């Protein structure tokens, strides 16, 4: 990949690939955000991708995208430790494959530029109707989190665990903050985002994106940019006392989530060490939680751990019968104890290492994983997928045991049946 400086705080990254039938451009903007800003950026994303100056309503914009062989706008606001990454991207069929030889990739790039820099404005504000509609959609999206209980439970656990830290703010913020936003707030958020975010633009294509980068340069150079490239995330520290939360709902299955902290450290090698630990604990089917809590104890269909390396934390989640709550809780902690006591074979560590390295090997074959990797790699000194795979290969049994011994339980969340359900 080739990195170039496009404008002040704007990097271009060209990932040359002849594997795909499409090319894609993604603009990744990194910015600190409080709850109001998280909601504002989420709303801004919906407004900017609803319509543009050139395509003044969503029907005409969607028709234009479909006429460009189903070009798709993608992105949104994602957590990046305590910061947020606001992504605007477009993916389009390569010119070589259009049915009548139409050249569509430049048109797709124009459409993305139009969405980001030339929104549909009326009297220096977003069109009120678009603003209101986007607000409605965002509120529906936030409320709909409850529809899928597994994601809901994890989100609630993060919420409690990282209390008073920006990482606790859920995706899109809350209904209350969205409701409080005014049209002017979003105009301001648009300005702040363009002027103050650090920007990484990824292009995955067979062809040199020189002209595309030039266009972005023109737009960014018109702005008064004041940017600092810095990841403001801090590691989460346990308060000492374990937080316990329980919620009741009309559900059949209970959801148990355990939030832990661990020493993931400052170096990428330490991140790799903790990634191997979390994988052995609750990653693949060879993991301690899968082989014991699921297979031996038959307590659940899933019991898995996922790492949040930026926050120095990980969450274990499982769907269980309510009466098995204590069994599952104890089962999970017992497996942690096993690793802490060094009951871990070289073979187990190897299983995890080769699975992680094998999976990294396929990152180059998918536009989404490539894009995600190279959006954030700028904060890891340009680390490539291969660099990270080599760090994984270095991890030893002792490294994993050392990580396990740094683990502390922080938060326990349980979603159980409401009382009337229990009486049935």
């Amino acid at each position, binding site marked *: 990949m080739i990195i170039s400086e496009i404008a002040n705080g704007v990097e271009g990254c060209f990932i040359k690939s*002849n594997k795909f039938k499409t090319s894609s451009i993604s603009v990744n903007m990194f910015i600190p955000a409080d709850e109001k800003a998280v909601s504002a950026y989420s709303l801004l994303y919906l407004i900017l991708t609803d319509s543009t100056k050139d395509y003044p309503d969503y029907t005409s914009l969607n028709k234009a995208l*479909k006429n460009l062989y189903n070009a798709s706008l993608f992105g949104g606001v994602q957590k990046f430790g305590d910061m947020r990454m606001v992504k605007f991207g477009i993916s389009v069929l390569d010119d070589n494959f259009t049915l009548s030889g139409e050249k569509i990739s430049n048109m797709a790039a124009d459409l993305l530029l139009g969405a980001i820099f030339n929104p549909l404005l009326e009297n220096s504000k977003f069109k009120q109707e678009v603003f209101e509609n986007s607000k409605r959609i965002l509120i*529906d999206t936030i409320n709909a989190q409850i*529809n899928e209980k597994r994601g809901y439970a994890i989100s609630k656990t993060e919420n409690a665990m990282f209390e008073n830290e920006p990482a606790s703010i859920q995706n899109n913020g809350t209904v209350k903050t969205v409701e409080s936003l005014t049209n002017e707030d979003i105009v301001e958020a648009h300005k702040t985002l363009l002027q103050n975010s650090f920007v990484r633009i990824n292009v995955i294509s067979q062809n040199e994106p020189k002209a595309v980068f030039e266009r972005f340069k023109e737009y960014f150079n018109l702005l008064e940019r004041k940017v600092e490239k810095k990841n403001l995330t801090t590691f989460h520290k346990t308060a000492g006392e374990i937080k316990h939360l329980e919620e009741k709902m009309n559900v059949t299955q209970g959801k148990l989530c355990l939030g832990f902290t661990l020493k993931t450290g400052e170096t990428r090698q330490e991140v790799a060490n903790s990634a191997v630990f979390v994988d052995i604990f609750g990653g693949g*089917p060879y993991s301690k939680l899968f082989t014991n809590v699921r297979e031996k104890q038959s307590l659940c*269909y899933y019991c898995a751990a996922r790492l949040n390396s930026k926050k120095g934390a990980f969450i274990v989640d499982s769907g269980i019968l309510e009466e098995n709550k204590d069994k599952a809780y104890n089962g999970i902690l017992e497996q942690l104890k096993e690793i802490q006591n060094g009951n871990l074979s070289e073979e187990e560590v190897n299983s995890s290492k080769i699975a992680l390295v*094998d999976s990294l090997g396929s990152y180059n074959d998918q*536009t989404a994983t490539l894009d995600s990797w190279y959006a954030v790699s700028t904060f890891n000194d340009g680390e490539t997928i291969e660099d990270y795979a080599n760090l994984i290969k270095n991890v030893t049994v002792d490294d994993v045991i050392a990580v396990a011994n740094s683990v502390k339980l922080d938060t326990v969340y349980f979603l159980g049946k409401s009382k009337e359900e229990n009486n049935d």
Partner: protein
Amino acid sequence: MIKTYKNSLINEQVKVYKHKSGLEVYVCEKPEFSSSFAIFGTRYGSIDTKFSVNGGKITEVPEGIAHYLEHKLFESEELDAFARFAKTGASANAFTSFDRTCYLFSCSTNFEENFKILLDFVQHPYFTEETVRKEQGIIGQEIQMYDDSAPWQVLMNLLGALYKEHPIRIDIAGTVESIAKINADLLYDCYNTFYNLNNMFICVAGNIDAQNVFDLCDKLLQTKEPVEIQRFMPKEENQVEKEKVEVTLPVSKPLFAIGFKEKCENPTKTLKEKVLSEIILKCIFGNDSLLYKELFDSKLINDSFGAEYFNGYGYACSIIEGESDYPEKVKEVINRYLNTYLEKGILEEDIKRAVKVYYSEEVCGFNSAENIVMNMVECAFNKTEVFEEFDIIKNITQEDVAKRLKEMFDISNSSISIVNKE
């Protein structure tokens, strides 16, 4: 023996090898990829609850047994399949749907070793009463997880409303009660019937050599006497079973699924009928359509709205899903638009745009080894020609669309399923 299908427009080719057992092996070589993806599948899913072999006695099995068998096949007398894949680093999995069961892995190293494991464990069942029993807790929790999933419930309730007899109305995993009846003998009965190579297929894509894949198949596939499977599907009336079904769950907004049931004069639809159906749904329900605009602007739907064509052996329907505070009003608007389309047809401009979208989706399928394999599975399963849809879309006419539209939508024969908010 080996047939090569080429598509010069998109510069792709697929090789198909017919093994002596009757099983077909589909391979798409992608040397520019680092990874590969493989599926070993069988034409056996949750709807296959009543069958006979070679004209013999009819067997009826408990609901959810195909899925149960999928779970149990990973076990063996010695090292189970997951433990074997743990040595190679592949990511292995399996899924069961209404009409098929597929075992799969993806990897970026050790393809040959992984492929050998896949072929071996799928061909070597090992069940004991004890290991079968052990699975009940795990699958019981999988069933309960789906019980709490509102999107799954709204779909299954719709299928139950549309179909009175057809086993499509049964949940893929069965129920906690039905799986309690499953034992090792029943699993062996199902295995010996549906896992005959003659009823199976293999699809592989990625950084692999086709000839090597065919050679490995020759070496490792154990041919048994082919069996003739007869599936007994109950007779299904054309009319829907219920027009409306409602339940209440903890959701943020009511979910709805509206289904239009089609006649099934033949048990399966042709590829052309399926392609036309997809294109019609894009024209009528896409986010660039007039219907979408009216529903969205009047706040009756949000961006979760969508439509899919749902069909398989003995069932076919168009399903429109979304979230709305007023699902019945959504249905009224849909019916009004359908009446207009049935009367006046669909604009040529809209058809052309939908064809472009369809074409692009097919081409972009070649962006990933997994998608390529999934598309080859469709060909293998339905016994259609590779790349056939590319020829079909070139020749679609407005008349084809108008004719198909009338077959798809009989407004008096539809159901609505609603998951209400508590």
